[in-house]
């Protein structure tokens, strides 16, 4: 919250999800939220609570029907490279190599070719994919695919990073490694991050603040401050961490149960 006005202002946003068949469903109900510059905010909630929808509205991928979202005081109207997104299932271009995937965003910016290539290489190195520049996504493991997707988005230097359960499709060990790396990268590159997850521990570990959402229709139930020293290697065993996880788990459990009942 550097200059008075927060960087992202979500003001009374509601969203109807209209399935191709069947009745429209209220996915988001009157959601208001403010996120400051360089803040790492996690959106935590049970599956189907509309947290991804909120991210897509912020990204400009879905039309805002009710309420308003502004980024740097400008209303969000369309997708733009100021808000980079990373999807759960990577969304890499499978016919492009790792390098060409990362170059795609850079090619759309006025940048000399040498600079583009150097920049792509530096992000390949950053996420530890040196040696795999010419591999196709189908030849990579899940973790490597997500590293590529992360590098691709970081490369075009968005001010805001939108992450839609980015580690949800990875195995537990890889996920744990990637969380550490993301935190590392975030501490080195100044970016605002909005991170959608249903993993309580992940939210507490990564975020400065955690916004807990209710089961459908999604509302912000409460916002919990989770800002403490994340570089402590034994953080997962500290009392402050365990207490936070416990507190948030208590908040999210009721919603998860509600969401689970509705599926039956």
């Amino acid at each position, binding site marked *: 919250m550097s200059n008075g006005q927060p960087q992202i202002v979500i003001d009374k946003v509601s969203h109807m999800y209209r399935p191709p068949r069947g009745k429209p469903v209220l996915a988001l109900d009157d959601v208001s939220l403010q996120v400051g510059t360089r803040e790492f905010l996690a959106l935590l909630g049970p599956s189907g609570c509309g947290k991804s929808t909120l991210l897509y509205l912020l990204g400009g991928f879905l039309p805002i029907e009710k309420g308003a979202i502004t980024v740097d005081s400008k209303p969000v109207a369309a*997708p733009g490279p100021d808000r980079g997104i990373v999807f759960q299932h990577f969304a890499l*271009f*499978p016919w492009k190599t790792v390098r060409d995937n990362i170059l795609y965003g850079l090619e759309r910016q006025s940048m000399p070719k040498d600079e583009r290539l150097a920049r792509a290489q530096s992000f390949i190195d950053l996420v530890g994919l040196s040696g795999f520049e010419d591999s196709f996504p*189908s*030849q*990579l*493991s899940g973790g*490597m695919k997500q590293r590529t997707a992360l590098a691709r988005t970081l490369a075009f230097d968005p001010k805001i990073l939108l992450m839609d359960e980015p580690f949800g499709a990875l195995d537990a060990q890889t996920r744990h490694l990637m969380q550490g790396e993301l935190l590392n990268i975030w501490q080195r590159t100044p970016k605002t991050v909005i991170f959608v997850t249903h993993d309580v521990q992940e939210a507490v570990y990564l975020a400065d603040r955690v916004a807990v959402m209710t089961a459908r229709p999604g509302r912000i139930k409460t916002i919990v401050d989770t800002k403490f020293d994340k570089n402590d290697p034994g953080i997962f065993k500290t009392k402050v961490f365990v207490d936070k996880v416990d507190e948030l788990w208590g908040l999210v459990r009721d919603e998860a149960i509600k969401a689970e009942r509705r599926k039956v």
Partner: protein
Amino acid sequence: MARTDAVAEQETLALEAPGRSLVRRILWGAAHLISIAALVIAWEGLARSGTFTPFVLPSLSSVIERIWSDAQSGELAINTGLTVYRALVGFLISAVFGILIGLAMSRNVVANWFFDPVVSVGFPMPKIAFLPVVILWLGVYDVSKITMIVVDAIFPVIAATVIAIKGVERELIWSARNMGASDRELMWQIVLPAAMPQILTGLQVALPLSMIVAVVAEMLMGGYGLGGAMMTASRFADSRGVFAGIVEIAIVGYVLVKGMSLLRRRLLIWHQEANEPTTA
């Protein structure tokens, strides 16, 4: 962790590959030949057993002799060349316009409103019914034969393109938009390549169809070409000539389809399927 896993996986694949694949390849090749060889032997044996007269079933060896003499006279090259030329030109026109119409239908409401009923009615319809009309309008030469091929082969291409584009992941399009792709870039750089595997499947249906219609059109309209030559042979009660045509068509069709599947492997080198063993 993830990286070392993938590396290890690649190494084990590389270690297993040479020994196994060589034996496998030979066995597979042999298995494919066995069924063809059985058919050939059965034909030759049946023809020589005297069960049928040579008029009803000429022996394969006499048919091959006939193909050989046609090849030497140059007739084989003319007939095969003409049929392949018509089939391929018809196929290419179907491919280009089929993909363009499919793209237009996916992008444009008006195009979809116009073409969707045409495709729904036209696809299942036996298009050979248009033959008399096409003859009246365009005569009996190449233009009308190629028109018949296009009328048939364009439908699977349109249908495959429309379905393929519908199936392109939303996230892929969003990613490209996120990086600043324009509508035009999105279409040619993202949607089309992402839809390519399924579009190629449509083309793989259209190619043999082009060959079939080429032969049928030649049979019904006459003139040179493998189909026309077979009808001529039939009218002159030249049974060996007819069977020679069947063998020639089988070989040409096989070569075309095989070529297409090689082209597919080439174009989809990035696709998961390129890492899998081939079945043909």
